[in-house]
């Protein structure tokens, strides 16, 4: 099976454990993936966001299943059933605020995870498949979040659903069919809430499935690290448990403080006041704005005067991420050793934040011009900067080993606790 399995040092002790392991080596698989798995010893806290994301997937599924017990997916009752949860269900306000803010925290974590990946060049060979699975998870997350935001059936739910389903209609040939399928009729209405609820319940399980593949792929290639160089000896690595486990648990708890702050003290900060107005097809809100995590893409959509062009660029902005492994020509992974590209990375990050700010502004005057400039730069980063800087940049000298980045060259550290040879990269093994 996977090479992660090959690193397993699990030896069943009891009779029943031996019996089970010889029929289904599940405990050995978990042991090799989350106990014995070699982790580069130089990982920083940006590498704990994978664990944070898994925690949030769990939180969203648990709170979501409980909310679904009380929610009524119909145009007539959806708004009131959400208020019923807020007012009459025991701790319903906690479930709902946790779920709504959990979605935002999920995106905070995924953006840190994505930008960490871009900074350290984790998308580069041999981790392309791992990375592509991540892009798929991100797409599924966006779809799930959009569907979820329509469910309270407030004004922003209704008009957000209307805007997004209308832009899908711009897709040539199949656009109208997709739109009718999503609507379940000739406009956003009762069948739309029904099917959006059904899809909103389905997609998280698909995310969970792709997450399993994502973790599997991670354990085949091993983790990248701030030095961007592979594990060369057992001294470069520490076993996942207890080293990464305790660090991840600590990071998850710290992140939960931020989460709790929003749930208990700013529960509506990341939402829109308009969504406390029940959906009304005959009154359009002054500004239709998506949730904050979609704002950069919303700015790109509105930067283009042509509807189809806007849709193409908006989806293109997400899909272009998938080409990063092949657009980046540098042989060095980590920005720590890429003095020129490192600056471009921060310019790209600033550009993405500015796009987000522009997405929240009305599409008029200077905001449109600014969105167009930032959109152009967004794509130029992938299509021009990534290939060219890789070709012309002189990277800094790479350290000899991961251990060296921790101790300095030539110095020694006490042992890693890894069995010799267990930590080598798969390509080098066998």
């Amino acid at each position, binding site marked *: 099976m996977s090479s992660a399995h090959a690193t397993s040092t699990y030896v069943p002790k009891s009779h029943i454990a031996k019996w089970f392991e010889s029929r289904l080596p599940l405990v050995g698989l978990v042991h090799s993936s989350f106990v014995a798995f070699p982790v580069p010893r130089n990982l920083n806290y940006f590498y704990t966001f994978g664990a944070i994301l898994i925690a949030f997937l769990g939180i969203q599924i648990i709170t979501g299943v409980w909310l679904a017990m009380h929610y009524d997916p119909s145009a007539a009752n959806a708004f009131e059933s959400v208020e019923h949860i807020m007012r009459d269900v025991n701790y319903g306000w906690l479930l709902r605020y946790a779920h709504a803010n959990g979605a935002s925290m999920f995106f905070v974590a995924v953006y840190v995870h994505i930008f960490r990946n871009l900074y350290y060049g984790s998308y580069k060979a041999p981790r392309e498949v791992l990375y592509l699975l991540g892009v798929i998870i991100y797409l599924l997350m966006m779809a799930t979040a959009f569907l979820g935001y329509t469910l309270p059936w407030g004004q922003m739910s209704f008009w957000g659903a209307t805007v997004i389903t209308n832009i899908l209609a711009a897709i040539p040939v199949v656009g109208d069919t997709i739109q009718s399928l999503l609507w379940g009729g000739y406009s956003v209405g009762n069948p739309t809430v029904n099917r959006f609820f059904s899809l909103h319940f389905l997609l998280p399980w698909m995310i969970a499935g792709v997450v399993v593949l994502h973790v599997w792929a991670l354990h085949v290639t091993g983790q990248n690290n701030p030095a961007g160089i592979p594990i060369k000896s057992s001294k470069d690595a520490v076993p996942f448990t207890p080293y990464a486990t305790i660090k991840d648990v600590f990071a998850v708890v710290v992140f939960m403080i931020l989460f709790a702050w929003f749930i208990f*003290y700013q*529960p509506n900060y990341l939402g829109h*006041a308009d969504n406390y*107005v029940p959906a009304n097809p005959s009154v359009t809100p002054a500004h239709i704005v998506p949730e904050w995590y979609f704002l950069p893409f919303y700015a790109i959509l509105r930067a283009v005067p042509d509807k189809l062009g806007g849709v193409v660029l908006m989806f293109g902005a997400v899909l272009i991420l998938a080409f990063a492994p092949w657009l980046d020509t540098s042989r060095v992974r980590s920005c720590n050793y890429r003095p020129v590209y490192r600056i471009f990375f921060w310019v790209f990050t600033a550009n993405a934040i500015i796009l987000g700010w*522009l997405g929240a502004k009305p599409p008029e005057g200077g905001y449109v011009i600014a969105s167009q400039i930032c959109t152009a730069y967004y794509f130029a980063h992938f299509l021009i900067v990534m290939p060219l800087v890789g070709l012309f940049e002189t990277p800094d000298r790479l350290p000899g080993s991961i251990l060296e980045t921790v101790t300095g060259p030539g110095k020694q*550290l006490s042992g890693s606790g890894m069995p010799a040879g267990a930590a080598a990269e798969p390509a080098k093994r066998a």
Partner: protein
Amino acid sequence: MRIALLAAAGLLAAALGSTSLRAEDGHAPNPPREKWSFAGMFGRFDQAQLQRGFQVYKEVCANCHSMRLVAFRNLAEAGGPGFSAAQVKALAETYSVKELDDSGSEKERAARPADRFPPPFPNDKAAAAANGGKAPPDFSVLAKARTYERGFPWFVFDALPFTGYSEQGVDYIHALLTGYEDAPKGFEMPGSGYYNKYYPGHVIAMPNPLSEGQITYPKNDKGEPVVPETVEQYSHDVAAFMAWAAEPHMMARKALGLRVILFLIVLAGLLYYVKKQIWKKVGGEVHGLQPELHKTY
């Protein structure tokens, strides 16, 4: 490469600069920020204020505005105006609700604490017809359904501890109720509607609902009202009441939040100590991006 960087920086500067080209769109002024007992981490509703606010709602607002999601029993629940169960029962009995009897015909009966506040109009169309074509908004979540834009950088501080701000809705309601004035010279009023300083577009369909001395507040021992019977006070009280109606579990939420966050901070501290102990065995770890650390060799 330097040229490329300069070009990139120039593009971003141009992007930011061009936003200032935007024309002014004549927004209403921002509502003044009021002091609310329920603001902040330790905020609590003032029971007496909620009771007075309910009185304002009942005597003035309820003539046109429904409050469909609030039940009479809510008035006696913890964290609210703190009426007694007997008071709520007596209050409910002054209202009547419609229901079908066993023969299928509609009949009226006295409301019970479990009933929700009956709306002033039989349906939205009747409400709209009686109010110039547009039904007055329901009060249940109105305090959360109104806001105003704070803009950068204020919206950042609004999210933080100690500078946090989530009372935009009640501030707006208070400003609106005290914002009726004569239209400034040169402002063309349409045929119907009233001028309000804080209403977006300034022309509001609702006539000024409050006037000085309009509502008789409870008296103290000396026979004087406990608080001034002014529009300013009425407006404060009813806005506070609306904040409670929109978020009846706010006090439970803030109290639980404090315990959860303190627990998480202590847990994080313990975990950090355990982590340090564990990592000591392999000689510690590196933190952060630290490009400079890596560059030294």
